[in-house]
């Protein structure tokens, strides 16, 4: 019993650091599949955290959410994404407009920024500072990935990371929203990923490439 509690405490304590590590690695990653794995790991960490919180606060809802999280984000979405990667038979490297080193630097800068950003709200919120910072970091990193990675799939992943951040923020600040809302959000996410996958194939079919930065016929 004590052991579980101990684990929960540890998880809550260390999850932030782990999340920082995942985003840094994601920034450095050269292959899409790696990013997918990292994303899966990220979601796993968050799930673990939810479980821990559920345990600490004794809230059945949180367990349910954790369950959905596990099924949808940790298993389904990463699997679907890597399936797409397989199916596309397209070059699998992330074509970034910044070198890995630069990316890492930028992301670490973003981490600092997020600490700076939440500063003024801390006294209002009274929550675990570095987890909230991690959440903001995820949001910012997601945004950064979407802007800097030109592969369609990478944009999807960036979006997912961003969404993860928001999800985490909601979690740490409010211990989760009403269950049905959470479920709906996750469902939307699933549908979104599905649609984006569809579009990725359409892009491949119509343009013979996946580089969204080349989609510039419509402008002005």
């Amino acid at each position, binding site marked *: 019993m004590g052991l579980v509690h101990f684990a929960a405490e540890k998880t809550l304590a260390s999850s932030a650091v782990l999340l920082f590590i995942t985003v840094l690695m994601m920034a450095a990653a050269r292959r899409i599949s790696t990013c997918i794995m990292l994303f899966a790991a990220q979601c796993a960490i968050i799930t673990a955290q939810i479980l821990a919180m559920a345990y600490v606060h004794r809230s059945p809802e949180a367990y349910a959410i954790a369950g959905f999280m596990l099924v949808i984000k940790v298993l389904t979405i990463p699997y679907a994404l890597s399936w797409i990667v397989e199916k596309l038979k397209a070059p699998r490297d992330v074509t970034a407009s910044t070198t890995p080193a630069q990316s890492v630097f930028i992301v670490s800068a973003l981490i600092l920024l997020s600490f700076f950003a939440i500063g*003024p709200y801390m006294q209002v919120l009274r929550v675990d500072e570095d987890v909230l910072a991690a959440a903001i970091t995820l949001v910012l990193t997601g945004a950064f990935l*979407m*802007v800097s990675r*030109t592969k369609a799939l990478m944009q999807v992943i960036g979006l997912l990371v961003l969404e993860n951040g928001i999800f985490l923020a909601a979690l740490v600040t409010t211990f989760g929203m009403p269950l049905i809302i959470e479920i709906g959000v996750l469902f939307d996410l699933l549908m979104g990923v599905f649609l984006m996958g569809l579009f990725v194939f359409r892009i491949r079919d119509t343009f013979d490439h996946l580089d*969204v*930065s080349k*989609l*510039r*016929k419509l*402008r002005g």
Partner: protein
Amino acid sequence: MEIAFHFFVASLFVLPFAAVAAQRSRMARAVVTTAFFVVLVAGAIVAARGFWAGEAAVWDLSAFAPFPFALALDRLSAFFLLLICVVAAPVTLFSGPYVERHYGGAPRTWLWALLPLFLGSMVVVVTASTAFAFLFGWELMTLFSAGLILVDGDSDERRHNLFIYLLMMHAGAAAVVAAFLLFLPGAPGLGFGAMRAAGSAMSPVMKNALFLLAFIGFGAKAGLIPLHLWLPRAHPMAPSPVSALMSGVMLKTAIYGFVRIAFDLLGGGAPWWGYVVLAAGAVSGVLGVLYAIAEHDLKRLLAYHSVENIGIIYLGLGAALLFLAHGAPTWATLALLGALLHTLNHAVFKSLLFLGAGAIGHSTHTLDIEELGGLQKLMPVTGAAFLIGCCSIVGLPLFNGFVSEWMIFRSFLAGSTLADPASVLLPMMTGVLALIGGLAAACFAKVYGVAFLGRPRSAEAEHAVEVPLPMRGAMAILAAFCVVIGVAPAIVLNPLAAAIQTFVPGTPLLHEQLRFAHVLPWIAVAVAALMLLTMFARTAVRLTATWACGLPKLDSRMQYTSTAFSKPLRTVFAQVYRPTRVVEVTPAGETYFPTAISYRSARTTSYERLLYRPALNVIVAGAHILRRLQTGNIQIYLLYIFLALLALMLGMRFA
């Protein structure tokens, strides 16, 4: 009275349906046209009752409209309503045969449907007693006039001109809207009564802003230089009767609006208002007539003369504003009297002239006066009417133009009693007005002399025939108005003075100031008597050929052309025209006998080049920059979103 007014306004908006219904048979069309004419006459009677007897009439439609929407007929409105009807009725009479002859099928139906609507919108404008009603009519007026222009077919150039017209009108309308809405905090319902109260309580800054907006907005409609760009393009494009209405009546609605706001609602303001208006008037007057002189397309020429006359009207308005600012309401009244009377006069003689142009086009199929000549003999009535119109627009005594110009002159002289610098600037304006008059005289001596006198310059002119009775009648009516007002102005002056008294507080006009009105008839009598004596003094008349310096005979090409006539003046004022001349000589064998010499001279009004182009270019350049920001790269788009968010957060942190 009320009932008649309601009937009149309503029927103007019902007639179009009748016109559409009656498009098939000629008979029905004639009936509708007659009905139209009758309605306008009825309107004229209503307006006359309101103008002379001061009977008010109200029509409050607020119950049906989303905004307070009411029409009211006070004396000023009645005056302008009278103006509209007095011009519109003869124009309708004229249009009957004219339209039947020149238009068929859809265009004809459109014409007959849009004419009443056009007039109706103008009636709404001049009788509106709420800002909403005014603006409603104001926008419709532009639309319907555009529609009437479109009736005359379309080409790329026409559409370009129409575009300029509509765009400038819309921008002007925006200024007008702003001007009216500036009254708002004080006058929630935007009824003129409330606005009047608000206007008197308004802070000087607001007043000035309001004045400037009104000045620009209405100036654009009135065609003040440099806002006149659309005028010489739009007016000539329309069918002649419509041109008559646009030039004769539509421009006047702008005068009405300006008087309403600047004098009635605001009750005058700082002296600099007066100076601004005077300057605008002077520039428009002089340049307008100078441009007119250089034209030889009759309708363009007349359009430029509208600019000139608007300038004269604004001279009067400016003087009035100055007098008000210096606390001399009596003289302000006189200046206003001149300005408003000139508004009426211009409406009458300008529409007469445009109808004359229509008649010329009707029987010669050209409006280029270089192609005309000798029409006086072939179209005596048209010629006589046109001559009267010329005399009036030039401002010669015994014709209406002179009466109003004299009033303005007189107020300028009175300016010497004011404080400096008005005491010098106003009298100086007499010079400007005199110059305008002289130039106008030159211009219309050219027009009438070349078009109606001498020998025909083309086969069309040679075989011209007098126009049918209704058209002649219409011109005769308008000509009669010119003469009556010119000889016995008292009939109009007294009620008009009363109308002005309603919104210019101050002592009524001294008898000494209106004495003029009683002197004029005597001069008329003297001149008329002498004319009769000298005309019918028994003299033998023998017809001979013109002396040809011994040549076998003169032909029409030996006459002075319009271009030749205006050459001296164009040379003197070359600075204004900045002509670009091109002489192309294709030499033959010997040096002195080239096979062909071609000479082209184009006049460039530099406003487009120096004023409008740059402004437009700036806007378009901005558009292109924005266009480049819309790169099409999705990552940039996302960046925009993030940046917007970041900006807002920072703003929240530091603001």
